[in-house]
């Protein structure tokens, strides 16, 4: 019997990691992406390699996933990370009161956290708000979302996967109650093509609902937009977080010679048509000033907004819904050969892939262990070699 063929829709972090895992387990893989790699949610990213500190009080399941994956990524893509740790900084008395809970939360999620003398923090971060009252150091980092995905996809291609960029899925083909392939518009040639598959993985992030609808099923994904502002100057060596519960504009992520402040959160209907509300940009500056008072004086380099795929569990507020992910086997809704993976974060893409590929292998009756924890990724630059 020839190896089963799996189509992955979407080349964001989830799709890329899934393609890598599938290829590593010996399956035939085709990735369909309507634009450039990481041109959706993954691309417009904070670039924060989470230590889990952000979620250690509100969402410990996510926090544990983060710290585990953080350590694995350091091993499989060491060249693609700025590893300078992060600081959670208390500015107000309320922040300071939060510190004990934060340290306990970190301990509960086995996140290495160090309460450092605030003077030491000023030494490392000369632009930090001089009124800062406390600082806790955690193993945050910075990654590069585009290259993150390219590295997974380059490795997948080396293991035989095919990546079709600029191909948009126009329909999901069903035969009886089973999905048997997809119809795509190939924008490189202007032609429509039909691709057969034994199974289709829907990894299209905030667009997951649209793809699922083509197969006649529903997924509870709520596209939730956020605004980020990038300043034309690097103002901190480490990632700076506000020592408190996650809120709007409470983080500054440095990368190369820039600093990115994020983020806000509001529900959107169409993830393709998001306009940046000017008041959100202003809010980022106001909040950013809390951590780094010079923020307002630095010219803006870019501002961006993108929808994240949050999984709706109840009618909870967008900020408090879980940042963790979920796999949906649509066989339970009567459609076989079709699974959706959504939610999560770029930091946790690998474990998301592991979980969905476990499900895929289970459905296809393949016994293959996940090896993505240990296999270092190929150079992202190889992605572009060897033709389309």
């Amino acid at each position, binding site marked *: 019997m020839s*190896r089963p063929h799996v189509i992955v829709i979407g080349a964001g972090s989830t799709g890329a990691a899934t393609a890598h895992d599938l290829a590593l387990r010996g399956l*035939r893989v085709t990735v369909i992406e309507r634009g450039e790699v990481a041109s959706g949610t993954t691309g417009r990213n904070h670039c924060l390699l989470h230590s889990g500190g952000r979620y250690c009080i509100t969402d410990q399941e996510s926090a544990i996933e983060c710290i585990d994956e953080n350590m694995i990524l350091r091993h499989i893509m060491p060249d693609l990370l700025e590893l300078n740790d992060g600081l959670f900084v208390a500015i107000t008395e309320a922040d300071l009161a939060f510190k004990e809970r934060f340290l306990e939360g970190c301990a509960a999620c086995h996140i290495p956290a160090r309460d450092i003398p605030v003077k030491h923090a000023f030494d490392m971060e000369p632009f930090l708000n001089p009124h800062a009252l406390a600082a806790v150091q955690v193993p945050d980092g910075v990654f590069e979302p585009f290259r993150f995905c390219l590295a997974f996809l*380059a490795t997948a*291609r*080396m*293991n*035989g996967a*095919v990546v079709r960029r600029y191909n948009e899925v126009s329909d999901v083909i069903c035969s009886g109650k089973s999905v048997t392939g997809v119809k795509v518009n190939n924008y490189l040639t202007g032609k429509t093509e039909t691709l057969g598959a034994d199974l289709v993985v829907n990894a299209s992030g905030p667009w997951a609902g649209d793809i699922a609808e083509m197969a006649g099923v529903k997924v509870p994904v709520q596209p939730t937009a956020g605004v980020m502002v990038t300043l034309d100057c690097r103002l901190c060596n480490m990632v700076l977080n506000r020592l408190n519960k996650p809120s709007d504009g409470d983080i500054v992520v440095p990368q190369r010679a820039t600093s990115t402040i994020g983020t806000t959160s509001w529900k959107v209907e169409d993830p393709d048509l998001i306009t940046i509300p000017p008041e959100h940009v202003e809010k980022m500056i106001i909040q950013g000033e809390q951590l780094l008072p010079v923020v307002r004086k630095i010219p803006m380099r870019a501002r961006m907004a993108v929808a994240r795929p949050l999984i709706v569990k109840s009618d909870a507020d967008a900020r408090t819904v879980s940042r963790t992910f979920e796999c949906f086997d649509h066989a339970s809704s009567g459609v076989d050969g079709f699974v959706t993976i959504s939610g999560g974060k770029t930091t946790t893409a690998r474990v998301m892939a592991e979980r969905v590929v476990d499900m895929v292998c289970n459905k296809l009756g393949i016994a293959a262990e996940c090896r993505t924890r240990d296999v270092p990724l*190929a*150079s992202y630059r*190889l*992605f572009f*070699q*060897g*033709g389309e």
Partner: protein
Amino acid sequence: MEKPLVQETMENPFAKEPKASWGWLLQVVTGVALLALLGLHFIANHFIAKGGLRDFADVVSYLRNPIILVLEVLFLVVVTTHAMLGVRAIVMDFGLSDRAEKRLSQVLAVIGVLTVGYCLWLTWVIIH
């Protein structure tokens, strides 16, 4: 089974060590030499051949001066080298095949030698 498209060991023409090139350095050296020689040429024209080289007789007597002769021959060799290297640089900018590049160098070398040879013959004819 289809073959993987991407391989780590893939042939990369840029990863092979090419032959060391001295062309640019020689171009700069001859260029600077030309600036100096051109200066000397002007001075010589002005002070040795007073009033300039007006007629044939002037040219003959000018070239019979041994210092001038050495200067002019040097000027000739350097200017030809610089010109050939310049032409080569421009053609090389087309990124030819290795074989064509080798052939180009050979052809230009022959043209250069012929040019210098012709001029030396001409000088000999004039002086005698």
